[in-house]
């Protein structure tokens, strides 16, 4: 108990680092990276302490720690933490990748004049992301969720002097914010029924509902609320149709993309679904929606990754695709598989992004058509990038292989045949686009303009190596050992612990597909054994649609410019012209007009008045005569 409660120091130290940097960072330049990295090192150490505490108590148990934050109208709102295997695994991932990225940035960003600001947001991000993971009630969760969104906004728009990052940042914030409307309404709906934001109580009620017992939650509301939560998750995890912000977010610094837009923040949506899985399980129809959205997202995104020529954007589409796989897995009751893939993908994708950063740092470009042959000049980057690519491509023994296999089994067990075909196809495409990027960047001939490219400094390559190790080895955590640890399925699970099992048929199909993809890539893209242009011409229509990203952006832009902005200008005009000029000035003007006419009778001539007097008394007299006398 005692050790676990120390977890609050992890976000707090990063938060204080943020405050410290804001206060002193500008004057003493070196203090900012030191504070931020120092805080995250403290975090990493404490993760171990918390793990010890968890193991001491009950490795797979769940504990809640709450303190009062504020109270209103008799309702107490709490600050609290959840410590269970899920949050611990996420904590480890977030702290480790944050540390790697911040160290990497020391070298990558060292010439940037806004280094202090950069590390300040990194510290704030670390604090809020850890809070997302730890939050034990929906209100605190939403607070942290919005804060990571803010950090994402600030980091995408880090180079705000240029137009493009500003637009990308705005797009990211607004897109996720629209999804957050649904999330907030969902949270409020749950609060409305359960009467507290506490996750513990909400899950308990959901379990009662699922078991068909008397529960505060009604099944209709739970279905709507759960679906709304899922929409929020779709926004953060860039699921179609909310995915449009993620490729544009690549306008930010590359280490940021590695941390926020690959390994940590974008998986918050997956984490949300996993965290609230008790709700999802009570209403299985929503899980079907989750798996459909996941599958469609991963299919569309992987085709977009295959035709893109910008290294960072390829990785971004690949991220979307793999987030889709995680959602698909959750939707197919593959809770363990999804979290397993989340971590494996987190390590691999952070590695790939940092590798891409290393490449673009050395060559000042991100267009893979202008690269080639880099393996000769930057071997460490090439080898580590290769490990990441193999892991993501699902080649055996690498981390991504094991997690993909788990997902396939979940889909096979719980969803129909079409889902399985789709998942296998996504796996194939995944291997193919990773192979394509890897070969085009690192193999072939070194172009003349790239002759001066050289390996990145140690501060950048060390994180690459440290991330390559888990990308290579993390997969073996599926196997249990004799001393207590029973494999990942016995550590992270929803309700039922299970052992690792390997379906030979599925496994061989997926391995063959992945190996074929890597195998055909070299003749296809490097040695040009096949005529690539003929294939391209054959599929030209399809390729164009993929290159344009299925026209999502165009439709949204049209909708925003033609519908939203036009109607807002219309309302603004209405307020001026109708409500103000007619409604407000109108009475004033008519009053003025009436007065200007009425004053004409004041002529000042006695005979006019005399005439009116005589006429008036005649009228009154006749009225009197008719009404009274008559």
């Amino acid at each position, binding site marked *: 108990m005692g050790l676990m409660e120390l977890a609050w120091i992890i976000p707090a130290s990063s938060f204080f680092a943020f405050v410290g940097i804001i206060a002193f960072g500008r004057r003493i330049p070196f203090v900012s990276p030191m504070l931020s990295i120092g805080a995250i090192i403290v975090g990493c150490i404490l993760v171990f302490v918390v793990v010890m505490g968890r193991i001491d108590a009950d490795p797979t148990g769940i504990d809640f720690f709450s303190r009062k934050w504020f109270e*209103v109208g008799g309702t107490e709102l709490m600050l609290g933490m959840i410590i269970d295997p899920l949050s611990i695994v996420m904590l480890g991932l977030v702290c480790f990748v944050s540390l790697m990225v911040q160290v990497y940035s020391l070298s990558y960003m060292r010439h940037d004049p806004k280094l202090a600001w950069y590390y300040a947001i990194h510290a704030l991000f670390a604090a809020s992301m850890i809070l997302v993971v730890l939050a034990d009630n929906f209100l605190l969760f939403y607070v942290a969720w919005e804060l990571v969104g803010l950090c994402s906004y600030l980091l995408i728009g880090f180079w705000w*002097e240029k137009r493009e990052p500003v637009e990308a940042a705005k797009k990211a914030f607004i897109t996720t914010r629209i999804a957050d409307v649904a999330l907030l309404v969902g949270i409020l709906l749950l609060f409305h029924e359960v009467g507290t934001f506490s996750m513990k109580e909400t899950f308990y009620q959901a379990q009662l509902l699922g078991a068909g017992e008397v529960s505060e939650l009604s099944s209709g509301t739970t279905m709507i609320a759960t679906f709304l939560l899922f929409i929020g998750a779709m926004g953060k995890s860039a699921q179609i149709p909310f995915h449009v912000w993620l490729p544009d977010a690549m306008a930010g610094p590359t280490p940021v993309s590695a941390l926020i837009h690959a390994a940590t923040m974008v998986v918050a949506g997956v984490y949300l679904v996993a965290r609230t899985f008790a709700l999802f399980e009570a209403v299985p129809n929503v899980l079907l929606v989750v798996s459909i959205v996941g599958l469609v997202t991963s299919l569309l995104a992987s085709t977009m990754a295959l035709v893109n020529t910008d290294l960072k954007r390829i990785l971004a589409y690949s991220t979307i695709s793999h987030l889709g796989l995680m959602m698909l897995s959750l939707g197919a009751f593959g809770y363990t598989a999804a979290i397993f893939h989340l971590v494996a993908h987190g390590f691999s994708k952070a590695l790939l992004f940092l590798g891409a950063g290393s490449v673009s740092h050395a060559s000042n470009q991100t267009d893979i058509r202008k690269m080639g042959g880099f393996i000769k000049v930057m071997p460490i980057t090439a080898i580590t990038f290769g490990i990441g690519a193999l892991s993501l491509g699902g080649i055996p023994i690498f981390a991504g292989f094991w997690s993909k296999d788990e997902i396939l089994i979940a889909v096979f067990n719980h969803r129909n045949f079409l889902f399985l075909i789709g998942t296998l196809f996504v796996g194939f495409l995944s291997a193919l686009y990773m192979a394509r990027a890897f070969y085009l960047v690192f193999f072939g001939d070194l172009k003349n303009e790239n002759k001066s490219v050289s390996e990145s400094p140690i501060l950048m390559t060390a994180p690459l190596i440290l991330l390559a190790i888990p990308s290579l080895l993390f997969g073996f955590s599926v196997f249990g050992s004799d001393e207590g640890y029973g494999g990942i399925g016995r550590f992270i699970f929803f309700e039922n612990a299970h052992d690792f099992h390997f379906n030979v048929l599925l496994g061989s199909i997926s391995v063959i597909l992945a190996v074929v993809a890597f195998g055909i890539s070299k003749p296809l893209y490097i040695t040009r054994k096949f005529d690539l242009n003929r294939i391209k011409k054959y599929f030209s229509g399809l390729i164009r649609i993929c290159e344009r990203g299925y026209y999502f952006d165009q439709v949204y832009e049209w909708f925003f410019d033609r519908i939203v902005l036009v109607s807002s200008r219309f*309302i*603004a*005009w209405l307020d001026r012209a109708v409500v103000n000029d007619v409604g407000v000035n109108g009475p004033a003007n008519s009053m003025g007009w009436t007065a200007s006419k009425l004053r004409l009778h004041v002529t000042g001539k006695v005979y006019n008045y005399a005439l009116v007097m005589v006429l008036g008394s005649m009228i009154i007299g006749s009225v009197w005569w008719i009404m009274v006398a008559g």
Partner: protein
Amino acid sequence: MDNFNQIALIFILAVPLFTGGALIFFPRNKIGAIRTFALAGSLLTFLLSFYVFVMYDYHEGGYQFVGSIIWLMDPLNIQFSFGIDGISAPMILLTGIVMLAGTMMSWNIEYRSKDFFVLFMFLVAGVLGTFSVTDIFFLFFFYELAVLPMFPLIAVWGSTTDFGSFLRTKEYSAMKLTLYLVAGSVLVWIGIIALFIETTNAGAGTFSIETLSQMSEDGVFSRKFQLIFFPFFMIGFGVLAGLWPFHTWSPDGHVAAPTAVSMIHAGVLMKLGAYGIIRIGMTVLPEGASGWMPLLIGLGTVNVLYGAISAMGQRDLKYVIGYSSVSHMGLVLMGLATLNPIGVTGAVLQMFSHGIMTALFFAVVGMIYERTHTRDITILGGIAHRMPFTVILFAVAGLTSLGLPGLSGFIAEILIFVGVFKTSIFLAILAVVGAAITAVYVLRLLGKAFFGPMDSKWETLTDGGPRELITNGLLAGIIFFVGLWPMPLLRVINSGVAELLARYPI
């Protein structure tokens, strides 16, 4: 100390009145002395307001710092009685803060600065008086005192908006604002007289809020009477709170007013409207309130959406904020209309939070306007290159208005949403959508006007000086404080709201 507590509120009123009065006798050309004296008066007022807020005992609740002086004997029975409860204490603090910040931001006024500060002090005295008296005759008196100086302040020191196709002169805006508010006070006045006559019929005519609410509890006001006269307060005070469709004075007024007046005006004066609804309408006429709240909550929703959508279509920086005030005051009205503790507490907190936030908004826009001489979003662009701190402060206000957690607006909004959810899920969803629209226009504004490549004509811009940055930095600090640790404010508000709602069926 006890003796001082009895007259603390008198002091709060007397300091700005005395400062304003004494300034009249200052020589016109001694601008430095005038400013220093005004600042000293504001600082003292702020300290006093802080003192009464901190010393307010929320365990005990009720009216504290009370005192009373008989002003007119029977049969009118008007007393100058004063006292603050958990709802007015935060408002007094808010006024103190905004007044001090406003004085700091008007430091540079060269044109007739003496007259400016005299009127400004009377304006603030009116606001403070409204929040601290417990007699509706004097409440009305101070309310009018607060409204009247607005006319010269806008018409003389204001600015005119001219976009060619769209012209609003400052005289037009000043006139419109005054006429509107006076029209609203006519309704309020009718309502007050009706209350007095009804109590006279019951045997003891009174203007005292405490007696009135006691009599209301005893059933002096019939349900019919309450239903007829509640709208007089709801709409009469609602005009000042920017209630749709009586809101059009407010964007025009905000835009035309000079910086400090916009700050007081949007920051505090609009809250007077909401406060009036609470203090007279909801306290004395609970059945009327219950009967009319569906309309108020509906109009509040219109406010939220209509204000937010209109803000999106604006070109002038100040108009964006003006319409956003309309939108945020809609949230206050919605929160009040829920009549449940969470919603009403949220509404009062939103009054405080929005007051600070809007003051910060207008102060920063004032800084930008002073330097660039334009507020046209399409002309500004990339000024963050030269004014980084100013833009950060603007961003803090902007993020507060879009309800970012960690800032005061979030706590207030979430409470209002929870409260409205209990009344109507549909309207609550609309309110949440309104908050999302806020994100759109705030971020568009930030992106368009402040970030991106800089126009070469802004090469010579300078960032805010220490005076401006410290003032606005403190406002931003309050926003953070309330956002992270709202308890000190909430427990005071809780006690006031609990008392207010004690007579409503839950």
